């Protein structure tokens, strides 16, 4: 019996269409009912489907043949296996919670229906991406979520920095997508198909060089979407969008699409160890690099944005070290605690009427107790303290990294310490000490707090309740990683140390942080300014492209060659016409003269040629 998988993405799409087309005339209640209802129904259908399907092997539903050309054929086909099941539950579950939260957060914002319409559209594309049974359908979802990301980052489109951030996200993602589409072309030329099953079945038989190239190209795509070095620059700016968007798209779901895609492509990657190595190195470099930037940011959302980049780096380490299930494990726990951190920071920002600078916060523990408590759960989870969720998944990744190459483990452990430090720095600056702001903070409404509470429960229990590595063991063929209690203790200690240092610097001796920053002034300036990466990109990539476009392409090629050619054709036509015009005197007898003249010439010519025979 077919499971009607298409209902899962179609429900949010229907919500998008209804709200998008008619939402302007609806009351907020109706918009809420449609937006949240569609996502909750979608979640319910996911649960029903997963209960009704035997997940031990992939279950596919084909709807129609999309492209057929000779032997090449792409079907519009959805598939469900265990990996998809995990992603579906994360996307619809966390997505539904964030939709509910948004009702409270967006209550006073303009463009209410537009926000929910975009959010529903995002859900549609994300679910398409996750359900896809071949690379092309996945690519449709992939581009669609990019579009929604762009729309929602630029949601406050009357502010220039928001639209700039949207453009930046879109353009940087294009670079990654360019690599991704090249990878797809390469798959087509070598496998003759884009279908996951077909491609993966043949992967082992292909030469390693081909698989390495494909793996690297797919990785470029994943680097763009999942904000890895060197394409991570869009994600911190993406925080210009509303906070629920940061939580849903730029923390929990869309940015993890790259991890999902690489994990999905595991049969290719396992036969391309060089590509895996590159992924692991990029992951660890990003994790470390972004964590250092996170140490010195003052905007609460920026801290969590760099934290997201850093945690995505962890997932890449997992994938790159062959621990695909650990990468997905971390993807899930990260979806819980990072969504919670963002929603919590949104609750704080909401309470302070838009204040995002942590220097103007402080002492909020008593004023917004529920937000504080739930966020604390997430903070402990991301710091990797057992038995919170982050501990299990981070540990699974680090153990796999140690088995692969120990230096990645050590860098990852240092990063874990820094992670604990910057998250608790944010917590201490926000919730402890004296209140340094002007306004009157107020706790958020229950509609925002209930999703926070649920996510807090998941952040606390999600790690040991959902044992993803065991669940996915049958999906991936990956090396056994031996348990190693010593390493586990070391990485946990790194987290504890980070918390302790943060406590020391921001609670016990509040002046210490500034003194420390002053003592390493050069380094601090460097980190505070995000290593001047935006400036470096502006100088090396953006400005040359902009100036080259302006000076060469616009003023040179467009004005000179293209306009020149068009004007030249026009001008020469006019000149020739100017000569011909002299014949068109309007004087009837001159016409007659020309006719006579012409006839004489014709007759003479014919006679000279010997007449008509």
């Amino acid at each position, binding site marked *: 019996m077919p499971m009607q998988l298409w209902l899962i993405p179609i429900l949010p799409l229907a919500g998008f269409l209804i709200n998008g087309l008619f939402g302007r005339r609806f009351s907020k209640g109706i918009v809420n009912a449609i937006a949240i209802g569609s996502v909750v129904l979608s979640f319910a259908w996911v649960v029903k489907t997963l209960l009704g399907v035997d997940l031990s092997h992939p279950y596919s539903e084909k709807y129609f043949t999309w492209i057929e050309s000779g032997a090449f054929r792409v079907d519009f086909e959805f598939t469900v296996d265990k990996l998809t099941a995990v992603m579906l539950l994360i996307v619809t579950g966390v997505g539904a919670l964030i939709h509910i939260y948004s009702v409270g957060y967006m209550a006073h914002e303009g463009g209410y229906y537009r926000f929910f319409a975009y959010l529903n559209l995002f859900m549609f594309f994300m679910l398409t991406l996750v359900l896809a049974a071949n690379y092309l359908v996945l690519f449709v979802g992939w581009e669609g979520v990019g579009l929604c990301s762009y729309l929602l980052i630029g949601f406050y489109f009357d502010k220039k920095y928001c639209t700039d951030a949207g453009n930046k996200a879109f353009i940087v993602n294009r670079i990654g997508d360019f690599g991704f589409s090249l990878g797809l072309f390469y798959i087509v030329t070598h496998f003759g198909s884009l279908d996951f099953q077909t491609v993966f079945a043949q992967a082992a038989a292909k030469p390693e060089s081909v698989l390495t190239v494909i793996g690297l190209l797919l990785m470029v795509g994943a680097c763009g979407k999942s904000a890895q070095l060197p394409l991570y620059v869009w994600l911190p700016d993406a925080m210009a969008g509303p906070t629920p968007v940061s939580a849903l798209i730029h923390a929990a779901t869309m940015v993890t699409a790259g991890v999902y895609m690489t994990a999905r492509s595991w049969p290719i990657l396992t036969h391309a160890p060089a590509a895996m190595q590159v992924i692991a190195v990029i992951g660890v470099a990003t994790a470390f690099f972004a964590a250092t930037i996170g140490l010195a940011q003052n905007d609460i959302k920026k801290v969590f944005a760099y934290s997201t980049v850093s945690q995505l780096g962890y997932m890449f380490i997992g994938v790159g070290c062959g621990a695909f299930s650990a990468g997905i494990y971390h993807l899930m726990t990260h979806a819980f605690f990072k969504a919670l951190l963002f929603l919590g920071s949104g609750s704080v920002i909401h309470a302070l009427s838009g204040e995002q600078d942590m220097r103007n916060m402080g002492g909020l523990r008593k004023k917004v107790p529920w937000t504080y408590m739930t966020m604390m759960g997430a903070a402990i989870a991301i710091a990797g303290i057992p038995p919170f969720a982050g501990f299990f998944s981070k540990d699974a990744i680090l153990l796999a990294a140690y088995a692969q190459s120990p230096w990645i483990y050590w860098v990852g452990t240092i990063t874990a310490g820094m992670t604990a430090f910057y998250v608790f720095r944010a917590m201490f600056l926000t919730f402890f000490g004296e209140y340094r702001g002007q306004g009157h903070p107020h706790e958020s409404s229950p509609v925002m707090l209930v999703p926070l509470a649920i996510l807090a429960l998941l952040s606390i229990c999600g790690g040991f309740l959902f044992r993803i590595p065991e669940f996915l063991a049958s999906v991936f063929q990956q090396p056994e990683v031996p348990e190693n209690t010593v390493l586990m203790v070391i990485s946990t200690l790194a987290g504890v140390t980070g918390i302790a240092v943060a406590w020391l610097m921001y609670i016990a001796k509040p002046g210490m942080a500034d003194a420390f920053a002053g003592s390493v002034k050069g380094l601090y300036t460097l980190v505070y300014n995000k290593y001047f990466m935006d400036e470096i990109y502006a100088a090396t990539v953006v400005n040359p492209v902009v100036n080259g476009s302006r000076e060469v392409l616009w003023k040179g090629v467009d004005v000179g060659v293209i306009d020149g050619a068009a004007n030249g054709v026009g001008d020469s036509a006019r000149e020739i016409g100017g000569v011909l015009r002299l014949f068109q005197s*309007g004087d009837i*007898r001159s016409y*007659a003269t020309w006719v006579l003249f012409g006839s004489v010439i014709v007759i003479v010519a014919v006679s000279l040629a010997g007449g008509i025979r």
Partner: protein
Amino acid sequence: MAAVPISWFLTLSAVLFVTGAAGFLFRRNIITVFMSIELMLNAVNLSFVTFAYQFKKVDGHLLALFVMVVAAAEAAVGLAIILTVFKRRPSLNIDEVNSMKN
């Protein structure tokens, strides 16, 4: 009866045609120009009939009849135009009928 040589007819036709052409080119009065056109048409008709007689074929006669029909139609239209032109301006000088110019 001694037949009139064919060249006489053709010479007459040529003379008529040249007269018509010259009138068309050098006269300024529209009516005269119009008559010159008729003259040229009839010169051509004469040639047609001559050749039809010479080669004992009916084609020439047919074409001559066609030309006469066309000439009649043309005369009707042309004279109507001339009348309209004369209504709108005081002279029939062909050089002054140039409102399409510029």
